[in-house]
């Protein structure tokens, strides 16, 4: 009854027209966005990735294509390639790499048919490797350890997406040893700038948290603490009074003592490590323990004769 009334009414005719119009718009829109996706893909095939991006930005917000894993997959690819075209390790455009990674992850989430999983994983793997590369470059080029570590953590985050059971132990050691060694060097080269020394210490202690037998981290920490103590002594002004002198000596002594266990560890791990023998001689000498200093001096000389 209701249907009959409605069918015969003016309202129905109007509504029928409206639905037809809506269907037309939707069809045209679906066609339009699909076409945009197609065009974007075509541009990508022609390596015109940057031109593809504005099209893909429309595709990923349109209700008809935003849930299509292909949209996000192509977007990931376009951003990844645009980033690569921007030059090696371009830190100013790192947001492109971020977008590429988040798009690949979104594509994976939508891709219930697993049609793009292999390529998405390849993108993420590629992006993760790029994050790692930039993180190491940032250390040396701009001394930006905070940004560098941020990118290193992204490398870990995205590597975990591809390989959830990946063991980062060696990579952590490699990265934090590189940071520690580099900043320890900067500490020396920049007039014992405490800021660099602190960065080095934090990084090297992270290495020892993972592997307390790591020789490189132990040596660098030992040398770092020793140098900090030696710097305190060397920077003393001639006019410093005896009371201040005692305080400075006390602080330097603490640093020398802090350096000792790291060097002893290296010596225990490798009794023929000449650097450890030489450093132990220096540390004991700084602690005014000439007997011990001589002991390591003799060990060093005996090693040289071998």
């Amino acid at each position, binding site marked *: 009854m209701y249907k009959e009334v409605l069918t015969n009414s003016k309202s129905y005719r109007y509504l029928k027209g409206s639905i037809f119009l809506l269907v037309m718009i939707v069809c045209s829109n679906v066609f339009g966005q699909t076409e945009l996706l197609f065009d974007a893909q075509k541009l990508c095939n022609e390596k015109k990735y940057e031109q593809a991006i504005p099209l893909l930005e429309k595709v990923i917000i349109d209700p008809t294509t935003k849930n299509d894993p292909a949209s996000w997959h192509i977007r990931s690819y376009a951003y990844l390639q645009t980033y690569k075209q921007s030059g090696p390790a371009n830190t100013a455009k790192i947001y492109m790499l971020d977008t590429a990674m988040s798009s690949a992850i979104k594509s994976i989430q939508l891709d219930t048919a697993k049609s793009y999983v292999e390529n998405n994983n390849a993108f993420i793997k590629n992006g993760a490797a790029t994050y790692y590369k930039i993180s190491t470059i940032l250390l040396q080029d701009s001394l930006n350890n905070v940004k560098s570590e941020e990118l290193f953590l992204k490398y870990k985050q995205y590597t975990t997406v591809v390989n959830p059971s990946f063991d980062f132990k060696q990579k952590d050691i490699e990265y934090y040893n590189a940071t520690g060694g580099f900043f320890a060097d900067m500490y020396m080269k920049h007039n014992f700038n405490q800021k660099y020394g602190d960065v080095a210490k934090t990084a090297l202690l992270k290495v020892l948290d993972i592997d307390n037998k790591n020789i490189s981290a132990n040596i660098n920490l030992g040398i770092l603490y020793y140098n900090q103590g030696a710097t305190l002594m060397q920077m003393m002004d001639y*006019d410093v009074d005896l*009371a201040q002198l005692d305080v400075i000596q006390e602080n330097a002594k603490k640093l020398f003592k802090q350096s000792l266990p790291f060097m002893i560890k290296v010596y225990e791990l490798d009794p023929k490590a000449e650097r450890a023998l030489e450093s132990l001689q220096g540390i004991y000498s700084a602690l005014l323990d000439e007997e011990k200093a001589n002991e390591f001096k003799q060990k060093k000389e005996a090693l040289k004769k071998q």
Partner: protein
Amino acid sequence: MFLYNFTKLFDWPEKMKSGSFIIQIVGSNPSLTQELNKMATSKQVGNQKLEIKTTTAIDPSIKPHIIYLLNESSDLLKDASSKYKGNGTLIVTEKPGLAKQGAAINFVVADNKQAFEYSKNNAVKGGLKTGDGLNGLAIVVD
């Protein structure tokens, strides 16, 4: 650093307040000598220029304000004590026990730090005046 502090904490007789302020090192310690020479280029004692002299024995031609007998020259302490008695020379040594044998200042190592024993009696015997400023900072032996 210690030696320069001593120049401020002792008062030398008037006759020693002209010419260069002489620190004599008896024995060989090149790094110490180098450091003292470096200090002498930028510091002076009152109006007196610092002059560092290195010898292997007590040299009668030198009238030092401070004579520093390095460990290897410790045997010369007795001679130094008698030669410089009342002359205005601070005798400094670096072998355990020497503050009780004539040195006014004797460097020792205490708790992994450089410290020094102080004998006010020996300083006075050397012709120097001093207050109690050193007492809280030194290992006082008398």
